[in-house]
């Protein structure tokens, strides 16, 4: 072995070696300076495997669909667009790795996501260091845009708009006096539960709180506690609709008959309504966007999406919209010179998006913090296995 190795080494003369390397380098750079520009990459960050993969994959499908459509229209002034996939599994530590991966790839000029508040919160500093603009379709935790990171943008209203709206509905429409709030200790779940609890306390509704963990499958312990306080309503600050479905089914098994209410990510036909059997019937859900099935401009998107990937899930429409907005910003930033695109130009262009009319049913602009302007909070109720809109509140942060 040793001998052969030596022999080979002897054959490779250093001058030859250096010239081969130099030649390879020349060819490589030659390609880069050829007439074909490298594709612009849009990062897609979200939970594409793991507990939340159903929601994540349907978002990714929508992102890819938006990009394919843009490419069919000629991309960014002739420059192709590609999706760079960053699977964070909904795990904050992986969210940071995804951000760093995108930051290192100089062709990634903007990111759709991260989808979860916890991953967004962890990854924000890394995106900020890289000057890489992000547009989240579903991260609702208020803190995200309060920390002063310029790259942060989102097209969903914040939990401090959603929480008070939910509380108003609980007090004014359901007229509940005694509410039990369960959360999953996550950035999103607990954050939303905190907002609802604070708003309910202000109105004077009695609130009792309890927690589970994201890994829990057995909810009898907490439900037994809930039963002892005999609440008029149980509010679920959970990020996994499948978990909510399991919880409501187990509540039936324990003889606990009460109304349930949950946050925006519960609006899932497959995981929540079908998953809970009949147990989700009558449940209230606050949503951070109108059911796009009711928006005329979205009809074509829905038809195309459902024809290709099957039933839409809760954030498919928002993911498509966020991607379209990013592509629009890329086009504005590129102008006539797609080779001169930089992250800084794209960030400026996203900041300057005004009244973008897409499929969400309201014109989208961003305020100075990157929060969306003009959104509403909708309350839906599960009726005959479908969602029916029962109330609309303007999304205001007090």
């Amino acid at each position: 072995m040793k001998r052969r190795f030596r022999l080979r080494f002897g054959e490779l003369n250093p001058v030859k070696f250096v010239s081969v390397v130099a030649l390879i380098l020349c060819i490589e750079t030659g390609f880069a300076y050829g007439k074909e520009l490298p594709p612009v990459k849009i990062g897609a960050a979200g939970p594409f495997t793991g507990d939340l993969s159903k929601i994540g994959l349907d978002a990714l499908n929508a992102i890819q669909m938006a990009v394919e459509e843009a490419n069919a229209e000629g991309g960014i002034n002739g420059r192709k667009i590609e999706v760079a996939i960053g699977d964070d599994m909904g795990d904050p530590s992986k969210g940071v790795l995804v951000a760093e991966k995108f930051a290192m790839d100089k062709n990634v000029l903007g990111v759709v996501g991260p989808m979860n508040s916890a991953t967004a919160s962890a990854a924000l500093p890394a995106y900020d260091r890289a000057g890489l603009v992000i547009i989240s379709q579903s991260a609702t935790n208020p803190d995200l845009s309060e920390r002063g990171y310029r790259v942060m943008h989102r097209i969903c209203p914040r939990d401090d708009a959603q929480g008070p709206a939910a509380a108003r509905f609980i007090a004014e429409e359901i007229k509940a006096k005694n509410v039990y709030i369960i959360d999953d200790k996550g950035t999103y779940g607990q954050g939303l539960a905190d907002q609802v609890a604070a708003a309910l306390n202000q109105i004077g509704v009695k609130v009792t709180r309890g927690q589970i963990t994201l890994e829990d499958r057995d909810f009898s312990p907490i439900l037994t506690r809930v039963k002892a306080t005999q609440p008029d309503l149980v509010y679920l600050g959970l990020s996994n609709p499948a978990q909510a479905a399991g919880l409501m089914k187990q509540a039936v098994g324990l003889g606990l008959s009460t109304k349930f209410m949950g946050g925006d990510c519960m609006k899932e036909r497959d995981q929540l309504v079908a998953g809970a059997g009949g147990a989700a019937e009558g449940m209230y859900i606050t949503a951070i966007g109108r059911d796009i099935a009711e928006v005329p401009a979205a009809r074509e998107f829905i038809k195309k999406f459902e024809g290709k990937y099957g039933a839409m899930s809760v954030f498919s429409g928002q993911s498509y919209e966020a991607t379209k907005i990013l592509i629009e910003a890329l086009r504005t930033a590129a102008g006539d010179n797609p080779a001169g695109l930089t992250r800084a130009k794209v960030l400026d262009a996203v900041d300057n998006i005004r009244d973008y009319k897409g499929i969400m049913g309201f014109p989208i602009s961003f305020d100075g913090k990157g929060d969306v302007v003009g959104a509403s909070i909708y309350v839906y109720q599960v009726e005959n296995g479908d969602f029916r809109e029962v109330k609309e509140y303007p999304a205001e942060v007090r």
Partner: protein
Amino acid sequence: MEQILAQFPQQVINGLTLGSVYALLALGYSMVYGILRMLNFAHGDVFMVGSLIGWGVLQLFIKEGPAMARSGLVLVSMVCGAVIVTSALGGAIERFAYRPIQKGSRLTTLISALGASIILENVAMLLTQGRAKAYQTELIISSDWTISALGATVSATRLIIICVSIMLMLVMDYAVTHTMLGKAMRATSQDREAAEYMGIRTQQVISAAFIIGSGLAGIAGVMIGLYYTQVDFMIGFSAGMKAFTAAVLGGIGNIRGAMAGGLVLGLAESLGVLFLAPVYKDVIVFSVLIAVLILKPQGILGKPVDEKV
């Protein structure tokens, strides 16, 4: 205080339900450890496979028509399907993951067990696309079939779980103490070499232990599916940890100990929640384990280890 008293009966029922499932799983752990002195970390994942198979069988029946009228048949088919697959899986794991390296160090088999566990989890993730699968328990066991007593609601599902588990445990106990296979198992666990000299085919005994243990895990999987009403590819991990804890708690290698350990663990988990927030239930479980290990290192029913000369 009043609230705590009101919750007490219900939490006891919760604890018994969960405890009897832990006990069934712990049996499999303990049997294998007793005979081979190895920890079969893939056991929790065999349980997960069982619950998914049960789900699959249930879907077949639901597709065919209303399942409620034949709920007995559906339940039996779910259990049979799960047991057949998990027993075969248990046998295969023993044959391919453990037997080739049986003569190696204990660490080697432990790593092989972890490998088997990772493979099972990932295959299940791919097949289910990582999604939770809903058990339509309400379609075969009506949610109206409940008994309320002393403020506790005992659903038919819980009753079935508790009764079936206790029955299986009694059968297992009888089998280990009164049948030839049980005798062979005990002999192999005491001294494999000597057992072989006495004409016991120890390799077959080992296979049998894996197959029976995995079959029990399959039944436990179906029952937990009916109880949680939802399963996914990750349930094996935490269930495996709890079952392992139960086995150690009762004295690992000891069949009756495993059953006692499971019940104690389930009750500790549920009753602990009376005084602490439910998020701490795992903390309670592992605190009980640590306390038992400090006070009685060999476990509740374990015998002190004799030093071999």
